[in-house]
């Protein structure tokens, strides 16, 4: 039995692995990811998921609603970490699934799978708190660097974390991006994980300070040129769980219920039996009484 079988069981219980085991797990996943394409081909049936943001209990609720791996195939469109309390446990859970069933689960990169962003939005602090050093965080960032940028379902549904880029008009241009690096400040790679759709025609500057706001005309042109039926993306909270735009050519999927422990929103995943036959599955945050209370940890400042 490979050692990750044991890790798989630990991760299911909302626990994190000893430092050396997690490093090994990261290495196993890195070896798998390096073989994947920038646009990873995927076939239906498959279920597409949006942001998770360290909400471990809600990730388990997602699996209860969408089906367990390997009974259901999944594409996760990034943002596994930051903001929530269980980023480490959620990421570990996804990595053990990837190690065990690499062809059943596709993990894409979100804008939060980055060194710079995780240092601001929580994952770095979480690793420091849980391990007392930054080693695990560094290893996880190596995995982030290798995550695929996008997925293409049955050659017609394009899945990406953020959206489009003014530097990208064909899918082939994505295929040649050197992705094994920290997400750059600007350019195609940056835009793909940072951009948002907006009710405009073309391009506008994004209030996020990275990526662009892209409009309906741009989307239409891109889809026609690349013979696409649908763009699936995540990256923005949708209170109703999912939202179609641009004549149903683009859908935002959001999979973190009660985002940031304050929004009270419902979450969703999108189940594709075929390109045209798809249904959203909605789910709520796991109730308080089903969450385990952790011990109070001694924070160094207060010793």
């Amino acid at each position, binding site marked *: 039995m490979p050692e990750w079988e044991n890790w798989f069981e630990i991760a299911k219980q909302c626990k994190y692995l000893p430092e050396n085991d997690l490093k090994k797990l990261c290495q196993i996943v890195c070896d798998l990811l390096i073989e994947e394409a920038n646009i990873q081909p995927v076939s239906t049936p498959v279920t597409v998921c949006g942001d998770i*943001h*360290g909400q471990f209990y809600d990730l388990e609720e997602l699996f209860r609603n969408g089906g367990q791996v390997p009974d259901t195939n999944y594409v996760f469109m990034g943002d596994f970490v*930051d*903001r*929530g*309390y*269980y980023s480490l446990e959620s990421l570990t859970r996804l990595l053990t699934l990837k190690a065990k069933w690499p062809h059943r689960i596709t993990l894409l990169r979100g*804008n*939060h799978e980055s060194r*710079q*962003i995780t240092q*601001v*939005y*929580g994952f770095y*602090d*979480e690793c420091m*708190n849980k391990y007392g050093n930054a080693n695990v965080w560094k290893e996880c960032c190596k995995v982030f660097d290798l995550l695929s940028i996008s997925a293409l379902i049955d050659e017609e549904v394009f899945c990406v974390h953020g959206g489009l880029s003014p530097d990208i008009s064909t899918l082939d241009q994505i295929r040649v991006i050197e992705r094994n690096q920290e997400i750059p*400040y600007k350019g195609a790679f940056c835009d793909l994980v*940072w951009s948002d759709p907006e009710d405009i025609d073309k391009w506008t500057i994004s*209030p*996020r*300070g*990275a990526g662009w706001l892209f409009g309906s005309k741009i989307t239409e042109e891109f889809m026609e040129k690349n013979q696409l039926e649908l763009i699936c993306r995540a990256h*923005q*909270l949708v209170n109703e769980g999912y939202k179609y735009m641009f004549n149903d050519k683009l859908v935002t999927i959001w999979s973190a219920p*009660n*985002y*940031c*422990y*304050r*929004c*009270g929103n419902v979450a969703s995943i999108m189940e594709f039996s075929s390109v045209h036959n798809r249904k959203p599955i909605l789910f709520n*945050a796991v109730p*308080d009484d089903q*969450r385990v*209370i*952790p011990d*109070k*940890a*001694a*924070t160094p*400042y*207060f010793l």
Partner: protein
Amino acid sequence: MITYRTSRRTKGFGNIVVLILHVFTVKGGMEFKTRVKNESDIEEWEKSEAYDDYIGFITAMNKSVTAIPLNKTLILSDEIKKFLRILNMIDDWITEVEPLKESCRFGNKAFSTFYNLLKMRLSDILSNEILLDDQQYVTELTAYIVDSFGNPTRIDYGTGHELSFCMFLCGLYKINILKQSDSKATVNVLFSRYLEIVRRLQLRYQMEPAGSHGAWSLDDYQFVPFIWGSAQLIENPDLNPNLFVDEKVVQLFKSKYMFLGCIDFIMQVKKGVFHEHSNQLWNISGVQSWNKINEGLIKMYKKEVLGKFPIIQHVPFGKIFQFKQCDKKKTFATSSTIKVSSQSLLEKLKKPDTLEPNIINK
């Protein structure tokens, strides 16, 4: 709860700085501008006079409200009353600006309208209320208070804006408008009123936490009220630290102690279990004494707020807060540019309050 790239977060404050620099160029005054341009400048900031003054102020106020709850009656000086009046006016301006009805993903855009109102009116009000020969002080103080309520582009609020308000307060001491005897009221009246206002703004315009570390932050929006609030609780007769996470205790003491007021606000705006959404505070509730909590929070504030480039990159320095290196251990309010007694305010505040003319026990 939208993610921003940190390195390009300069929009909101930049405008003011440009405006102010223009004024100064005309008058030939000392430059008022941001000085921390990259991570490596943080060290210089930590060695600056400005840093020394600011930390001196935080600890001096901390000392002044130690064991002084909010319900202790204080007689207010005319200066405190004046600035309380200004804060009350700001509160009225919020009432003037209705939130927009459309659902806004990035916070309610009406906040920008409020912000423009604030910027326009505060400038006139402070010019009339703070009578100094040197207009540069007024200009700098105005910039700090205008930036205290959030960013109009991103419609967010965080510890950087709180820092700006504290710099405003500290500035009032540095130019001798507020006096040692005002220190309790600075925290328990002015800062406490400020908190009410920013909470109202956060709720009314759905402001996002600026650069929050999520579940790993002390709080989405504030830090300083936890410091001064924990000082109020030192040697208190009401509660041990382990009780501040108890909802009933919070309801009982939220008006008496600033710290509990903060917990009450978290419990209002957060959904879900406390230990998950506010894990840092959950851990702190396990610390033995309020004294230890207070000391720890000051250490944490230095590292997690004052030591962070994404926050300090927006802070302008000039005549009140000088970026030059702090050579000798001059502390708070002994800037050479300002005529004050040679004894620093921090030193003065350290002395026991022998006079207490302004304080009546309830």
